[in-house]
């Protein structure tokens, strides 16, 4: 027969004090399985953890105390700490998902850097004809190229020199 522990919303948690066991129902959309794994792994040395899926949208986590007969307060503390850890794992999982592209890019660059300098064969086969990068604003141009004196083209007649000669 289940008992209700104080401070825990009804329907989420069932406690069996006699058996030293407490079950929590978790929304699978709020808490991903990876987060559940993370929190469970931290707790398997403190208590027995069993994960079940009563339906597709719910995970049921059962925590059983390793002690013979824990008090209600001890069970409440256990489930509270588990819930906190679960929330932390879920949030870290979300951050990892959000930053996945950045993490992969940085890791790739680090691995590429660790591969060392390119060999002569690599350089020989390197295609230098490609543009290094797009530069629509001309940021990579030198100051002379952008603002320096314009060099006269050879095809243009040198009007001033011709005038002086005549």
């Amino acid at each position, binding site marked *: 027969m289940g008992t209700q522990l104080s401070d825990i919303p009804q329907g989420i948690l069932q406690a069996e004090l006699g058996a030293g066991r407490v079950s929590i129902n978790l929304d699978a959309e709020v808490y991903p*399985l*990876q987060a559940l794994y993370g929190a*469970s792994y931290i707790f398997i040395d403190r208590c*027995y*953890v*069993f*994960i079940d*899926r009563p339906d597709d949208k719910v995970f049921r986590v059962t925590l*059983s105390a390793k002690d013979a007969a824990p008090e209600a307060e001890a069970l409440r503390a256990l489930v509270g700490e588990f819930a906190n850890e679960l929330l932390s794992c879920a949030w870290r999982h979300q951050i990892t998902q959000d930053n996945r592209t950045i993490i992969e890019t940085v890791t790739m660059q680090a691995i590429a850097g660790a591969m060392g300098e390119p060999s002569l064969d690599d350089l020989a086969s390197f295609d230098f004809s490609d543009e290094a990068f797009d530069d629509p604003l001309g940021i990579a141009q030198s100051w002379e190229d952008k603002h320096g004196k314009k060099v006269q083209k050879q095809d243009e007649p040198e009007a001033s020199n011709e005038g002086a000669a005549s």
Partner: protein
Amino acid sequence: MSAQTLRFDKQVYAGEALDEAVKAFSNFAAFELKQEDDAWVVELISKSPQMADRLRNEFCNYALGLTIQRGGAS
């Protein structure tokens, strides 16, 4: 001898982890493995009735730990 039937959801527990757990606990209990559409079913027959509950819990913990170490069920 006391028999207990445990159902492990296939989306949560890795089958290989359960196989490994069965191997690790084979000195303490006899096991019979079955498969359903959505669950691995393990029948655990403890050699010591006094230790049956503890054995079941330790087995579940061990299987979950191995599953997580493998990176999950899939």
